[in-house]
């Protein structure tokens, strides 16, 4: 199989399959899930009531809700949230990174030092500090993770744009009198696209794991909303009774991250190869 003129490896195909299945589950949750995510269909950790003709794939959860249905609905929260976070962090990171590279001078120095400062601490610890004051509402979570994550996008897009900005055609556009925004949009962005798309995948899996970890620790998505991380938290005590309940949402988190990483690995490989070919 070929995609965009490149041979797709088996691992990349597997990864794409995983991503597509997850996207379908997230978008089509109300039609695919056998029950609503809040619907109580039987006793806690028991069997469904007799009026429900349904064999539960993964059993019922701590409140008697269908675990499989909740897993499908959880995909919406987990994937949707991480996608929004990644988009915001990319918008911030690319704009500031490209601006720093094109303008240089004090703007570049100021932005770079600020990013160095933010990276002087582990991201999770820094997020804890912000959340301890601002609480754990969704807008706070999204903004905090997006800003912390944008530092890494800044570094990459600055480095990419630094290389591109030294090329003649960018210089010509500047001399011609084109504005900063025009130069970024028309000259730099199209040429930095390939590595940025691969980075988008990496940052997505980072944001995804990050929000899941926060939810698992009880500092992320709060009830009645549920993502996969908070589901692991809800079901974790069952592991001592030899139940597999917490392994399903945790496994779903791992599976999607692995899928994304397979695709990213493939994209990075074709990117580096096309450079070698000249």
């Amino acid at each position, binding site marked *: 199989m070929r995609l965009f003129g490149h041979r797709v490896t088996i691992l990349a195909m597997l990864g794409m399959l995983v991503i597509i299945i997850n996207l379908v589950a997230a978008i089509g949750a109300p039609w695919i899930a056998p029950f609503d995510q809040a619907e109580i269909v039987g006793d806690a950790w028991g069997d469904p009531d007799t009026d429900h003709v349904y064999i539960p794939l993964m059993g019922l959860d701590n409140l008697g809700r269908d675990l499989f249905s909740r897993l499908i609905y959880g995909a919406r929260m987990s994937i949707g949230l991480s996608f929004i976070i990644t988009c915001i962090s990319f918008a911030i990171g690319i704009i500031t990174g490209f601006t720093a590279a094109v303008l240089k001078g004090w703007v570049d120095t100021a932005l770079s030092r600020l990013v160095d400062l933010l990276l002087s601490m582990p991201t999770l610890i820094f997020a804890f500090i912000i959340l301890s004051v601002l609480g754990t509402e969704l807008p706070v979570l999204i903004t905090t993770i997006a800003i912390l994550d944008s530092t890494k996008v800044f570094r990459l897009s600055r480095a990419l744009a630094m290389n591109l900005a030294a090329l003649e055609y960018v210089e010509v556009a500047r001399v011609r009198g084109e504005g900063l925004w025009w130069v970024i949009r028309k000259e730099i962005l199209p040429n930095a696209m390939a590595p940025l798309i691969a980075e988008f995948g990496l940052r997505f899996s980072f944001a995804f794991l990050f929000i899941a970890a926060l939810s698992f620790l009880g500092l992320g998505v709060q009830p009645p909303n549920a993502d996969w991380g908070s589901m692991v938290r809800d079901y974790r005590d069952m592991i001592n009774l030899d139940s597999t309940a917490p392994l399903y949402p945790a496994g779903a988190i*791992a599976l999607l991250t692995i899928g994304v990483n397979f695709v990213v690995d493939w994209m990075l490989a074709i990117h580096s190869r096309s450079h070698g070919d000249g």
Partner: protein
Amino acid sequence: MLRLIAQRLGLGFGTLLAASLLIFVGTEILPGDLASAVLQNSATPESLAEMRKELGLDRPAYVRYAEWLGGVATGDFGHSLASHRDVIEEITPRLTNTVFLAVYAALLAVPLAIVLGLMAAIWQGGIYDRLVNFVTLLTISVPEYLVGYILIKYLSVHYAWFPSLANVTPDTPFGDRLVLTFLPVLTLTLVVVAHMMRMTRASVLNIMASPYIEMAFLKGLPKWQVVVRHAFPNALAPIINVIALNLAYLIVGVVVVEAVFVYPGLGQLMVDAVSKHDVPVVQAAGLIFAAAFILLNMTADILAIVSNPRLRHPR
């Protein structure tokens, strides 16, 4: 060389100061005011004003920062808002537990990663090598809690070889401690070892392309001897760097792993403090985590200088 090391030490200290400023700004100057965060829904204008006064928020921020920093330097982190105990008293036993866990994990993970990485370099291109690459990709994607719960389910619940709860107390004897914390340590090791060994392998293979390695082969040395005696010492600097970075990652992993095994460590304390808006404890714990992170990065830099003659004599 001493000047270079002194430079790194100064840089590390500066970074730590910057981190302390960041922590202070994050907790005290952000729009959400500490007093309203503490009082939450029970806030009235009067109680807010009183709380601000009690917390000293009526004074300018730079004065409070100087006071806080001065306190930290003398080991006074203030009082917990939740338990009203001295923060340093709350933190000390927790920190000891976390350090124990991290050191135990590092002692297991680092030698394992180096040995496995060297094996991968010796059998480069073979099935073992490809397996290592694949497993590395898996482990960087798998969250700590999945590894932790799988270990609990099989090694603890199913076979009952190890306890699932790492509920140590200050009186727990050393030997029991090693058994109680074995599963959390195994989890941390599994999460970091693959990446470290892959980087060990890459650094060694990088050296293997040098002419003096070819010379060693030509004079008839067996491959394992070339790798261990000639390539490995020269690959030490990048390996040390990767190990330090992974240990810095261990600091973050510890927070999650402590939650999985209900281990009374600093990470659990910080998570509890965050949900209770107990800012003095969050500040202190955050500063300790940041300091450990910075210290590891600094150590990596210094060890790289010491282990590399070219960096030792800069021109």
